[in-house]
Structure formats: structure tokens, C-alpha cells
């Protein structure tokens, strides 16, 4: 039977969207999870994948044409199946076009299907399984409210609203931590905490240089990121992953350097472990205000192609950073596992930052410094106005969100000065 490729609903308020770019044409064969098209919504560009394997047929909608959510844009035919006469979109089952709040028209995503395989024995309705599959949600973390604990669509919708259960479940709690040993330690031990979608390797640009200058440098892959298998099923899980890294590091008080979401994670960890943390430096921190580029966060969480990843990376810096195809491939394969989807929903809701750290900051006793690039396109630097007046702020006129990529020497200089 021909499988419909529909214009998915990617957030509750979405009523229509358009194809930004078709990645396939009629007659192409696809595997489940292959990129089929990129979609414009009013907020961002999203990728939509093939829900199953087969031959693309019946593409009738041109790029850029606004369509209602649930509109059938193309079909996937099984081998040997005949062409489908496209149905008029008005005839799409009413669920997909009415204002009904059931998210039946949610995206067609399934890639690596986290609701299968390792979840034998879970009681869930077929609809709950499908919704979870499409949202990249793991059913194992959910509690069912139905008879005998059965998970139904309502439970999945609640989980999606609160961000529980995102990503594949793993029992491996080992954290991966990069280490640049000091060449003759003369300075602090630095722990560099990456931002959303990053990992320890994000710090390559300054890690080695800092080590040369006498810092002992560590950079963990936080929960839900990089090679750390532990999933980020809540903000606190991410914080806990940093705390377990800090607890395992040798040496005395640490200087924590957090970037963006990593800054927020570092603030919360510093609050929990006041004696362990000597100093906190926040680069373009998340959690000081409400504004954020939601399209970037969602886009990165959903990205499947290295083209999309590169386009998103370009938003992070003022300088044009040369990424090798290999680097892009690794980043794409990391984000395309869908591990960031749940976290993205926790960090940004209704277009705004949803976790606020000013109260935590005010409660810290260690020295805190904030550095922002005024060219930041992800989080506006003006959020520094919300900081307590005791916290010094440095603004870099030539830096975007990734200060350590745009101004690595300036940053290492500042860190050197701070730890002097």
C-alpha cells in the first residue's frame, strides 16, 4: 500500500507550511529515515524523512507553496506498486486538518526507531507507539495511565509536553571526558562545558593552547551529547552528568567554563557543589533571559543532512570556520540520532528559553564572569543587563555565539588573566 508523505505538524500551533526544498524526485528510491524534503514553518526550517522504504511518487507540490498541515505531498510506493493518483488534499482525513488537538499530524520522522527493539514488554497502544516513534521518544521512560499501566496517546503527549523519555535509553552511565594535560601545570584545572549539540571536541580550538599555557584542561561530553551514552532526559540529568564528571576529577577547586547551555549547566552544578568550584566563567550563557533562536535549536535537534548542519553552524560564528567533510559527517551522525529532540523541547518552549538561572547565579559565592559576543545570533548579548551588578561582563565586538571559535586567542587571554 502506498505510504503518504504528509506535511507534518511540528508544533501545536502550526497550521500550514511549505516545502523549502525537495531532496528527492519522483522515481527515487528511499530508505526509511532518508531526507525527503526540508520544510519551512513560520519559525524554522525542518527536515522531513521517509517514513518507510520505497519509491517516491506523486510529488505535485512545488517548493514554496503554502500547504495545510496534513496535506499529502507525495507517496512512497512499494516495489512493483503502481502510480498513485494524488488525492485532492481536501480529502485528507479530517484529523490532519481540523483544529483537533490530537497530534495525529505530527512529523513523519521515524529514523532509528527508539520505541522498538529494546522495549519488549512495554504495554502501549499502537497510537502511542506511533506518536513516540515519530517524536523520537522512548516509551521506556514513560508511565502509562491506562489499564494495567498501558501507555496511551495521552501519556505520550504529556511526555512530549514535559520532555520526559527523550532519546534512546542506555544503561551505560560512563561519561566521556577529553583531557588536555598541562605542559607543566602552573595554573588552574579548567573544565570546559560545551553547549547544546556540542561535545568535548567543541573545545579543540583552545584546549591545546590552554594546556600549553599551564592549564590542566578537561572537557566532558554531557548527557545526551557526543560519545556519552547517558541520555539527556531532563535538564537535571545533564547537570548530574557534569557533576559526576567534576566529582571524578583529581585536584583541588576547579575553574568551570560553560558555553551557552553548558553555562547554565555549570551554574546549576556550581550551586550544588559550592566547595568544588572555585570560579565560573560563562560564555554566551543560556538562562539569563527569554529570547533565543528557536529555529536553530529545533533545527539542530532535527538535522539529518550535513548541509543542514553546516547551515546551522554558520549561524554560530562571525568568522567562516572551515569544517572538514569528516567533521561535518561526525557532527551530522551525532545529531541525527535524534538524541537532542527532547532536550531541545526542554530548553525552548513557545519560542522562549524555559529554564532560568538568575536566582541560582545570585546564590553562588564563587567569582563569576560573563563573556558575550555582540554578534551573537542565538542568544542576544543584551541579556547581560539582567545580571546582578556584582558580575563583571566582557563584550567582544567581533564574536558571535561561539566565542571560542571566533576569538580563541582573546578568550585564552581572558582565562589566563582570570586565573592569575
Amino acid at each position: 500500500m502506498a505510504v503518504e508523505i504528509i506535511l507534518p505538524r511540528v508544533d501545536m500551533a502550526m497550521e500550514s507550511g511549505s516545502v523549502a526544498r525537495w531532496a528527492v524526485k519522483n522515481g527515487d528510491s528511499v530508505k526509511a529515515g532518508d531526507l525527503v524534503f526540508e520544510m519551512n514553518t513560520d519559525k524554522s526550517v525542518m527536515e522531513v524523512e521517509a517514513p518507510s522504504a520505497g519509491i517516491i511518487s506523486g510529488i505535485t507540490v512545488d517548493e514554496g507553496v503554502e500547504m495545510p498541515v496534513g496535506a499529502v505531498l507525495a507517496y512512497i510506493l512499494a516495489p512493483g506498486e503502481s502510480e498513485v493518483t494524488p488525492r485532492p488534499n481536501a480529502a485528507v482525513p479530517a484529523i490532519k486538518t481540523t483544529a483537533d488537538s490530537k497530534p495525529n499530524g505530527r512529523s513523519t520522522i521515524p529514523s532509528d526507531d527508539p520505541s522498538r527493539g529494546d522495549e519488549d514488554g512495554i504495554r502501549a497502544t499502537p497510537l502511542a507507539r506511533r506518536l513516540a516513534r515519530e517524536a523520537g521518544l522512548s516509551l521506556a521512560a514513560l508511565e502509562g495511565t491506562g489499564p494495567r499501566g498501558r501507555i496511551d496517546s495521552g501519556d505520550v503527549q504529556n511526555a512530549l509536553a514535559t520532555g520526559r523519555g527523550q532519546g534512546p535509553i542506555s544503561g551505560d552511565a560512563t561519561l566521556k571526558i577529553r583531557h588536555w594535560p598541562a605542559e607543566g601545570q602552573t595554573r588552574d584545572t579548567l573544565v570546559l562545558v560545551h553547549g547544546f549539540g556540542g561535545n568535548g571536541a567543541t573545545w579543540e580550538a583552545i584546549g591545546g593552547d590552554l594546556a600549553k599555557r599551564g592549564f590542566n584542561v578537561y572537557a566532558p561530553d554531557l548527557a545526551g551529547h557526543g560519545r556519552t551514552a547517558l541520555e539527556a532526559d531532563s535538564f537535571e540529568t545533564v547537570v548530574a552528568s557534569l557533576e559526576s564528571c567534576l566529582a571524578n576529577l583529581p585536584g583541588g577547586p576547579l575553574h568551570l567554563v560553560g558555553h551557552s547551555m553548558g553555562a547554565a549547566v555549570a551554574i546549576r552544578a556550581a550551586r550544588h557543589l559550592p566547595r568544588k568550584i572555585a570560579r565560573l566563567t560563562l560564555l554566551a550563557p543560556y538562562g539569563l533571559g527569554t529570547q533565543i533562536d528557536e529555529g536553530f535549536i529545533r533545527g539542530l535537534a532535527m538535522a539529518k543532512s550535513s548541509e543542514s548542519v553546516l547551515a546551522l553552524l554558520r549561524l554560530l560564528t562571525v568568522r567562516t570556520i572551515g569544517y572538514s567533510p569528516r567533521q561535518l559527517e561526525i557532527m551530522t551522525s551525532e545529531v541525527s540520532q535524534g538524541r537532542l529532540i527532547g532536550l531541545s523541547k526542554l530548553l525552548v518552549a513557545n519560542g522562549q528559553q524555559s529554564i532560568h538561572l538568575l536566582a541560582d547565579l545570585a546564590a553562588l559565592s564563587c567569582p563569576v564572569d560573563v563573556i558575550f559576543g555582540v554578534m551573537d545570533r542565538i542568544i542576544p548579548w543584551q541579556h547581560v543587563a539582567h545580571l546582578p551588578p556584582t558580575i563583571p561582563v566582557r563584550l567582544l565586538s567581533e564574536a558571535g555565539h561561539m566565542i571560542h571559535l571566533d576569538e580563541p586567542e582573546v578568550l585564552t587571554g581572558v582565562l589566563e588573566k582570570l586565573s592569575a
Partner: protein
Amino acid sequence: MLEKPGNETIDFRELTYAEAIREAMTQAMEADPTVFTLGEDIGTYGGAFGVTGDLIHRFGAERVIDTPIAELGIAGAAVGAALTGMKPVLELQFSDFITLATEQIVNQAAKIRFMFGGKASVPLVVRMPAGSGTGAAAQHSQSLEAWFGHIPGLKVVQPSTPHDAKGLLLAAIDDPNPVLIFEHKLLYKTKGLVPVDAYRVPIGKAIVRRPGKDVTIVGSSIMAIRAQAAAERLATEGIDAEVIDLRSVRPMDTETIFASVRKTSRLLIVYEGVKTLGVGAEISAAVAESDAFDYLDAPIVRLGGQEVPLPYNPVLEKAAVPQEDDIVNAARRLVRDGRA
């Protein structure tokens, strides 16, 4: 009167289910001299349930034939007449008596077109009063449509309204293959608007009687009527049920059911026949095998007849088949608690 596109109008008036069937017979016999009817007591007596009424006075004893009490014989006569160019409409007094005529219907009427490579056909219609509720006890109250729905070569319909009773009978008479019509005894006196002119209700097409979003209730014949009444009561509790009147058991319009399940995510199937190995099992399995499966948010629930010969005692008789209250309760449990 109802305006149709092009300013054509359709004249309607209220008829009972029995009158609608008689009108279909009249119009078919007036239009086609090969149409005739035969059965026990259908002549001067007017039929066990008064359906044929005065047809004998209008069309004479040659076309409204009173037969001996011998179901196998008269079914054989009807099959033979159909094979040789006539269009017989056979009435059995109670659908239970089809057990006697089964050889002719299952082994002959259903098979002949296939065994003769399409060179012969059996344009036979069998009309039968079916179902419980009249105190007619175990041998006169069964719902055997699933038996015959199992046989390739037969078509099986179950009208619920006077409109469909007329339209399905006319469609059945047109059909070049054998069609069995299970008419519910309790519906004969129910009234509804029926167009004056001849028209056809397509065999094999279900109809959504009431659109809704919370649960799909599928039934046919009197169960479609009870399901609609139940849906109105459920609406007062905030449960918006979609009611599908199946109308035909074979061929079955599964697409209408699938589309509804994709919308509501819950399915309740109501039927008077015994629950086990019945129409509900077929619908349930078809949904489970279809792409609608991935839209189910609760188990499929069958509300069928009890596993007993129908009792004579009127209280037990009622308890043996789904009633309006049962449908309301089952739908409420399914929507609220997600279980049968």
C-alpha cells in the same frame, strides 16, 4: 420535496420499513416482467410479517407465488428460475429457516457463476426476517448473516432504515448475483422518509450516520439504530461518537471503517449475531491488519450476542443481545478507561 442540483426535485414521504420493501417490490415488478416473488404465505395472507401485503392482488398468483412449506424445494425452484432468465425474490418466513435451504444457496447459487466459467449467473434475491426481540424463541430469532458472509459468491446486506430497505432491495434485484437480505423483525414498523421514485442504495457501501471524534461505533441493521441512539446519549456526557452503519456484510466497506478509526483511534463493534466468530471478529481483524492499526489508542471492543440459543423469556432475550444501554456503557468504558 428536496432540491437536487439542476432544479430537479425528489419527492419523499414517510413509509414504514415493511411498506418501503413492498414499494420496491412493486416498482421492480412493474418495471421488469421477469421479476417475481415466491414464499410461504406471501399471497393472500400477505406474508408472515405482512411485507408482501396486497402484492398478489396487483400482480396475480403467477408473480406472487404461495409455495409449500419446503424451503429446500422453493430455494431450488428460485435458483432454477434465476438460471433460466427470471429474477426471483424468495421470501423465507424466518431467516432461521435458511438452514433448510442452505444447499441451494451455498452450494448452488453461490457457485454456479464460477463453475460455469461465467456463462451462467443466478440473479436471485432472498429476503428474510431476522433477529430477536419478538419473543419468537431460539429457532426463530437468530442472526445468521456471518454464516453467509463467509461464502464467496454471495452478497449479504442488512438495511437499517426504510430508505435503505427499499434502495438495497432494488439494487439486489438489479444485481446479476445472489443477494441475501436480512431484514430485522423489529424494524418492519419503524418509519422513515423514502423517495417516491425507484432508486438504488449501493451494495457494499457503509454510511457514516453520525460523525464524531472520540470513538467509532460500527453496527448494521437494528444495531446501527441503537448505536445512533446511544451516541446521542453519549454526547450529553461529552463523548462524541461516530456511528457507521455497515449496511452490507459482504462485500464489506472496510475503507469507511479504517478512515473512521484513523480519526477516532477507538473502535466498538456492535452486532446481534453471536459474538464468537462473527461479523465483529472480521471487522476487528481487518482493522488490526490495516494501516489504521497504528492509530488505535485502545483495544478494539466487540459487543456481540451472548453465547446462548436465544431465550424465550423476554428479560433473558433482551439480555442476550446488545441493547442501547450496553452500547452506551461499552463506549463510555472504552473512551474513559481504554478497556472493554
